[in-house]
């Protein structure tokens, strides 16, 4: 395991990037970090700045106005960075695919490492996703 991977997977700094979301994935992300599920005890903390991020959580569709900002914000993140698309909207556009304001699938401009579908995915699913991601990053079999 390289130094970078070791450092990356020990204590992930999470930056939460909501596109044009309905807020539900966002509150479920927060619910995952607050006492009942408490992912914070494993060192996952929300950070205020993209420049501190190891893990970016994308939620919601990205409309024509927010997509350009999201690209810009993603470029500011230190690399390597892991990106997870949370919820049906971020994964595929969901029910807003037909909307005139839907830009394009988010993986066209941001490389996504994991997709977590659901509307919204339950906190248990998010925990499972993080576990799988860390296992994968460390080069172990899932």
């Amino acid at each position, binding site marked *: 395991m390289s130094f970078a991977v070791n450092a990356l997977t020990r204590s992930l700094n999470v930056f939460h990037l909501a596109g*044009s979301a309905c807020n*539900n994935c*966002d509150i*479920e992300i927060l619910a995952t970090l607050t006492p009942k599920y408490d992912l914070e005890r494993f060192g996952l903390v929300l950070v205020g700045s993209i420049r501190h991020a190891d893990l970016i959580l994308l939620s919601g569709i990205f409309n024509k*106005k*927010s997509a350009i900002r999201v690209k810009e914000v993603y470029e500011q993140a230190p690399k390597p960075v892991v990106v997870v698309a949370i919820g049906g909207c971020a994964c595929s556009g969901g029910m807003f695919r037909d909307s005139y304001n*839907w830009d394009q699938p988010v993986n066209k401009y941001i490389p996504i490492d994991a997709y977590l579908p659901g509307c919204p995915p339950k906190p248990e699913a998010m925990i499972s996703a993080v576990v799988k991601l860390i296992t994968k990053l460390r080069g172990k079999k899932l």
Partner: protein
Amino acid sequence: MTKRTIIPIGPYHALQEEPEFFKLHVEGEKVVGLEIELGYNHRGIEKLSESKHYDQTIFLVERICGICSTSHPIACVQAIEDAGDIEVPERALYIRSLIGELERIHSHMLWLGLAGHFLGFNTIWMWAWRYREDVLDVFELITGNRNHYAMMKAGGVRRDIKSEDIPAIKKMIGNLVKPLTLFKNAVVDDPVIHARTKGVGTLTAQQIIDYAALGPTARASGVLIDVRRDHPHAAYGLVDWDVIVAQNGDVFDKAVVRILEMFESLKIIDQCLEKLKTVTGPIDSNPREIKPGEGVGHYEAPRGEVFHYIRSDGTNRPARHKVRAPSFMNIVTDREAVIGQTVSDATIILAAVDPCYCCTERMAAIDVNSGKKTFTSADMIRLSQAKTEQVKKQLGAPGPQIKLL
């Protein structure tokens, strides 16, 4: 004279759940101007709704907002029922009110947590979110989902509440009284919270009326407005409850109104559960068609009145669907509340109206001359700004102050 500085907040900022952009004009510590820029969350839901049939529309409006995810469906089904003259069985009315009030508790607790977080009380944040999970457990028991409950349906509700579940639900609801009292005491008695929130971001009753603000924002300023009481719908006319009002209109009163409303919600839920034991019958009148016509639906969401308008042309799709969400009216009061306050108080003032941008952002831009839709990114920004200007004009707010620099 102190130099004027602009502090940009957003669109992607640590303080915010959702993307929105505030430009705070400050002179030293004092806030002298505020610009609000929206449009980051616009998804074209009204237009999408015209391409979906009535059953699908309800799932669509549910996804307008994840926090008020039963307020929009209730308003929408009421609009459909109004348009099609559909009768709703009494049992369904009680279930609607019950789900709506549970949602109010979870939404207010969520707000309380975030407000605590903004004030620097992370303990309140964590505790509020911990007890919010208990409400979500009730939701999971009744509807099968933690969020996005999918309970509403034109003509009734989708799922019944089994009578054998009622004691368990009652117990779970009863368990909420203790933590709610804890929060009430924590906020009402704490001198630090008093110092941070009393007299901060005050809105007078006249300002509320001028801006047509709604919900707890209005009720905290002594404006007695609650669509549950003014236009009784669902089971609100059949149960006994009070509208909570406070007089000062500051952040403290907004918090107190929300906390006391949660107790009222518990009262309503208790009565609904009692009634569900005796009121039996179908939960759904199974409408087969929606007659041509127009209908409106109101619902008092946790943030204020949600309004839906449906025009039906006799087909299985709405010909026009119009949504007005409460935050649309409430966020414009931010300017009035924040100017003259210090930068450090700005966050809690902006948060005090419980802004919900995913509800608010509706805009359609059609180039009339060429007949084609213009949706380049630059256009969206320009249109968004134009819309903000328009809103200000409509509400009679002084526009020039916005362009201070």
